[in-house]
C-alpha cells in the first residue's frame, strides 16, 4: 500500500540518515585528511580542518621506508585466494543444501554460523603451534587457508540464501526440456546465480582484505599484508599520526575503490532476501 510521507517526516529522516552516514565516514575522512598534514599539525589542538599546509611527504616517507607494493600483493593474493577457494568449497555445499535439503540442513547451517561466535583468540595458540609445526607461519598459503576457514560460514550462508531464491520449478522445467545435469548447471543455474556469486565474492574480498587478527598474528614479514603494513606504523612509531594515516589511506584505498564501483552489487547482496 502506498504511504504518504509528510514533509516534516521526510526532512527528519533525511537529516538522521545523513548524520549517520557522515558519522560513519568521518574516521576515514579524517584519516585521509591527516595523511596530508605534517606531524606537528596532525597532533595540533584544536585541529585544523582544511587550512593547513598540504603535503605529500608522508606518502613519500612511507614509500621509502617500507615495501608497500609487497604488502599490497600479499593482500591481493590472500583475499582473492581465500575468497576463490571458499567459493569453490561453498558453491557445491550451498547448492546441495538449497536444492536437496535434509531435515538436518538447518542444523548444519546453524553449526557453521556458530563457529563465527567463537572468539578467535581462543584458538590462537593451537593454531599458531600447528602453523609452526607444519611450516605455514608467515606464508601466503597459510593465510589463504586460515581466511578461507574464517569466512567460509559467511560464504555458504550468502550463497545458500541466493540459491534458495531460485525456484525449484525452473530447474524441473529444464529437466523436462531435456537438459542434463551439466547443461542445467551451465545454461540455467549459473546464469541465474551469477549476481549472487558476484556479490558474495566482493563482500568476501573486502572481509578478507580487512581481516587483521590472523594476518597480524600469523605473519612476520614475507606474507604480511597491508594490515601488517599499517600496524608497523602504529606500534614502533608511537605518535607519528600523519605517517600512520598515510599508511592507512594507502591500505584502504584499493578496497574503497573496489567497494565504490561495486556498491550496487554489495547492497543487493547484503539485503538479499530481506527486501524483495
Amino acid at each position, binding site marked *: 500500500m502506498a504511504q504518504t510521507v509528510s514533509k516534516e517526516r521526510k526532512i527528519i529522516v533525511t537529516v538522521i540518515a545523513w548524520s549517520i552516514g557522515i558519522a560513519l565516514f568521518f574516521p576515514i575522512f579524517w584519516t585521509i585528511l591527516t595523511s596530508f598534514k605534517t606531524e606537528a599539525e596532525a597532533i595540533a589542538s584544536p585541529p585544523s580542518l582544511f587550512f593547513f599546509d598540504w603535503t605529500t611527504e608522508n606518502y613519500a616517507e612511507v614509500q621509502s621506508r617500507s615495501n608497500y607494493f609487497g604488502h599490497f600483493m600479499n593482500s591481493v593474493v590472500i583475499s582473492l585466494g581465500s575468497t576463490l577457494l571458499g567459493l569453490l568449497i561453498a558453491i557445491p555445499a550451498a547448492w546441495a543444501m538449497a536444492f536437496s535439503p535434509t531435515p538436518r540442513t538447518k542444523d548444519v547451517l546453524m553449526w557453521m554460523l556458530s563457529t563465527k561466535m567463537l572468539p578467535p583468540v581462543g584458538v590462537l595458540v593451537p593454531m599458531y603451534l600447528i602453523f609452526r609445526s607444519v611450516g605455514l607461519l608467515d606464508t601466503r598459503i597459510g593465510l589463504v587457508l586460515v581466511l578461507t576457514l574464517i569466512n567460509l560460514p559467511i560464504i555458504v550462508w550468502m550463497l545458500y540464501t541466493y540459491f534458495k531464491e531460485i525456484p525449484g520449478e525452473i530447474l*524441473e522445467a*529444464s529437466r523436462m*526440456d531435456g537438459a542434463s545435469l551439466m547443461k542445467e548447471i551451465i545454461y540455467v543455474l549459473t546464469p*541465474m546465480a551469477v549476481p549472487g556469486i558476484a556479490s558474495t565474492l566482493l563482500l568476501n574480498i573486502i572481509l578478507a582484505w580487512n581481516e587483521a587478527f590472523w594476518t597480524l598474528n600469523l605473519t612476520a614479514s614475507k606474507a604480511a599484508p597491508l594490515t601488517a603494513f599499517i600496524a608497523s606504523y602504529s606500534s614502533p612509531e608511537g605518535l607519528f599520526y600523519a605517517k600512520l594515516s598515510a599508511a592507512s589511506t594507502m591500505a584502504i584505498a584499493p578496497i574503497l575503490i573496489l567497494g565504490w564501483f561495486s556498491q550496487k552489487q554489495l547492497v543487493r547482496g547484503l539485503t538479499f532476501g530481506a527486501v524483495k
Partner: protein
Amino acid sequence: MGSITLQNVAKHFGEHVVIPSLDLVINDGEFVVFVGPSGCGKSTLLRLIAGLEDVSGGQIIINGRDATDLPPAKRGLSMVFQSYALYPHMSVRSNIGFPLKMAGEDKAVIDKKVTDAASVLNLTDYLDRKPRQLSGGQRQRVAIGRAIVRQPDAFLFDEPLSNLDAALRVNMRLEISELHQKLKTTMVYVTHDQVEAMTMADKIVVLNKGRVEQVGSPLELYHHPDNMFVAGFIGSPRMNFATGDKAAAYNARTIGVRPEHLTLSTTDGAWRGTVGVAEHLGSDTFLHITVDGVGLVTARAGGDVPLRHGDTVFLTPEEGRVHRFNETGASIR
C-alpha cells in the same frame, strides 16, 4: 501417439501415503483432467507421470514402453508449470527454443520452429523480450510455446491458470482447448477448479486422498456420479444433500439434488423453507434456503425471481433428478 497407462502406481513420502495404489488409462489424443480438492494427490500424480518424482511402486507405461525409470526428458512429455517456470535470463525466443537446443537441433530448424510456435500463440512481437517484460497471460503462452515446440507425445499442465485473473483465465481456457483441437495431442491437465475440468475435459479423473473416485466424461460425472464425493465435487453450486425422513421417502440413506433441479413455488411443494440470502446474478438467482429437517439448501431460480430474505418458499425435487446414496456414500442406481 500419446497413450499413458498407470498400473498400481503408488507414492509414499516416508510414512505419509499420498497415493495408495492407482490404475488409470489415458488414451492417445485425449484431454484428461485430474480434479480434486487440494492435497488429493493430483499434482503428485502428474509429477509421477512427468518423472519429476519417483514412484514408490507400480509401473508407468507411455506409448507401450515402460517409462517408470526413465528420466523426465526421455519420456517424450512436455510440462507447463503453475508458476510458468520460464528462464528469467533468456529472451522469449531462447525460452521457447530451449528444449530444441537441448535436443541438439540445428540452429535454422530451431529458428523456424520457434517462429511457428510464436505465430500460433501470438507471441511474434515479443520474441526478443525477457519474461519479466511480459504480462501473466503472455508468460503463460511462452510456457505453452516451450511445451509445444518439440512436439511431445503428451502435454502435462499443472494448474496452469491459477495465477491468472478471472477474465484471462476464461480466455486461456479457450486457447488451450483450441490448441488441443488443433494439435490433437494427448493433454493431461491438473486443476482444483471443477469448472475448468467440466469445460475442457474429454475425460475427468476425480481424485480424493490419492484414490480415483470416478473416471468419466464431464456429463457422465454430472448426471451419474458414483458416490457422494463426486456428486458434491462436480457441479456449481454444490449439490444439496438430505438425510433422515426426506431421504427415507426415496428409499435411501442420503439423497442429493442439484440446485438447478429444484422447482420453486410460493404456495405448495415437498419441502418448506425460508429464504436466507438471495444472490442475484442477473441471469440466475441463487437462493440459500433453510429447509425444515434438511438445513441449508441452495436453489437456482430465474434472474427475475422476486423472492427476498425471510420469504417462505416451497421446493420440489424434479422427478428423476434425485440422486440416491447408501450408507457408504455410494450411489444406488
